[in-house]
């Protein structure tokens, strides 16, 4: 049991982080908070991949004459993509939040849901 906990402590941390982010994404009412949660969530996944790439006694995956072992380069490559995806999603989400704030005057989900279907508001395009 102890080995299980010690041997994989990186993984436990990533699970904890991921759950914090996940919780914020589904249970927070504030739209920006959801985005913050989303960032934590996605970074946690990246942490998982990077932990996986770690090799005991390894060095950075750049050719080096003294190197005994290298870290696994593949997860690094994959996670570069994941970071890009993360920032892209964040950007789009923020753009949406700005539009929502203009259209509804709020970024609180429950307040917005109350207003939903109320067609008296200005159409979103016209406020730009």
């Amino acid at each position, binding site marked *: 049991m102890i080995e299980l906990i010690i041997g994989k402590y990186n993984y436990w941390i990533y699970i904890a982080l991921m759950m914090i982010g*996940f919780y914020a*994404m*589904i249970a927070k009412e504030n*739209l920006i908070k*959801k985005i913050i949660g*989303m960032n934590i*969530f*996605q970074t946690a*996944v990246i942490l*998982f*991949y990077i932990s*996986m790439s770690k090799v005991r006694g390894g060095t950075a995956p750049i050719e080096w004459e003294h190197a005994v072992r290298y870290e696994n380069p*593949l*997860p690094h490559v*994959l996670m570069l*993509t*994941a970071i890009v*995806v993360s920032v*892209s*999603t964040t950007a*789009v*989400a923020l753009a*949406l*939040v700005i*539009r*929502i704030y203009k*259209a*509804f005057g709020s970024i609180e989900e429950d307040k*917005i*849901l109350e207003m*939903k*279907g109320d*067609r008296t*508001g*200005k*159409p*979103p*395009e016209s406020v730009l």
Partner: protein
Amino acid sequence: MISAENLPILVIIIPLISAIITPLVGRIHRSIGWLVALLATSLSFAYSLALIRSVMENGPISYWLGGWEPPWGIEYVVTPFNGFVLCVVSFITIVITLYARKSIEQDVSESKIPFFYSLYLLFFTGLMGIVITGDIFNLYVFIEISALSGYALVAMGRERDALIASYNYLILGTIGASFIVLGIGYLYMVTGTLNMADLSARLPELYDSTTVRSAFAFFMVGLSLKLALFPFHIWLPNVYTHSPSTVSALMAATSTKVSAYVLLRLMFTVYRPEFVLTVVPVTKILLILAALAIIIGSVIALAQTNIKRMLAYSSVGQIGYIILGASIANQTSMTGSLMHIFNHALMKGSLFMVVGAMVYRTGIVNIEDMRGMGKKMPFAMAAFTIGALSMIGFPFTVGFVSKWYLAVGALKADMWYFIPIILLSSLLTAVYFWRIVEAIYFREKSEKLAGLPSEPAEAPFGMTATTLFLSLLCIVFGIAAFIPTKVAAAAAKLLLGG
């Protein structure tokens, strides 16, 4: 030069490059963006057809990107299974592109139209990339391309509620995608590979590993979110209701289908059929979920007053059909499931296009206001009637073909109890579509309609013609069902490891 062996990449790269140049060339004249989109989707469809023909004759095609042999590099694989989906997606997209031209002018301001078409093409590229790839991480990348472009497309809806729909779609879509990437990580961790064929070869000895199993659970949850399988469907009704008509049609006809494809691909070709059937009998859970989706989707659809929302809930039910056929997992039901991917794309595509045409001309989205519409827009409503009959599963329409396969498949598997479910949902579908058909033709015009000029007024030619075309295809392929069935049956055989 550009020879036949490069077909798999051309299918993807032509729309991709078109998407890249659209924002630039689109500025020259407002219809150029559309022309580029049309050209790209047409070429992509032509190449997909060439691919499927070659695959049916000569067997699967593997394309090594960068010239690296898999599993070192990324591989594109074309089999009857994904060739079929490629053709379906690209074909429907051409039709919707033709339709989009006028429709989108109402939803998107003129200076943004090139950007719209760029995202439209990116969405399409993403879907095609998802389908054709044989590498599991590449799959994720393309899922993100289509998802990101999808969010923006949905937000283009006319009402401000579209923004909320898009935002929720984004959050749930990201959760789904993150689960998928997590699953990929788990699989990579225990196998060391990302190539699907390689994974499939290495996984069987690891079936007992908790890592492999929980990876599977993550895939299921992630894809169910993308697929809007009950009870993960919550984002779908809002998205379909508030998107621009073109986008609703496109999404309903293609994106959930592609997600269903991915689910099947993972269940049956990355994991093997024996894993999902015996080792961890997920198909049992999926059967229940599918049955619930079919019934609950239909029941909720019954209660809707907004036509787009009704169609959306009906989609929730129809997705259940696809999953049902796949989970029964015999040759017949699997064929039915694959046929339903195609058939439902035709039916739902045409129905959403009808609604789009109606919104374009009259602005009506409430079922109550559709009374007497048959006199106002006779052609569009004819298309609606055909689509409705097809959804009900009337013989001579595509809807019947898939129901036939699903029912016979269920009987062959000794699961006769799914037939009452299928039939009950047909009945419910009949009720919620028929009340509209009746209102369209046999009731005096609604107040809203009476306020408009009384002479018949169809949507612009491009919209009406494509809508009618698609709905006529519902009949054509209801009769000539043997053409797509041949491919679907080959694909089903492949999936079940035969």
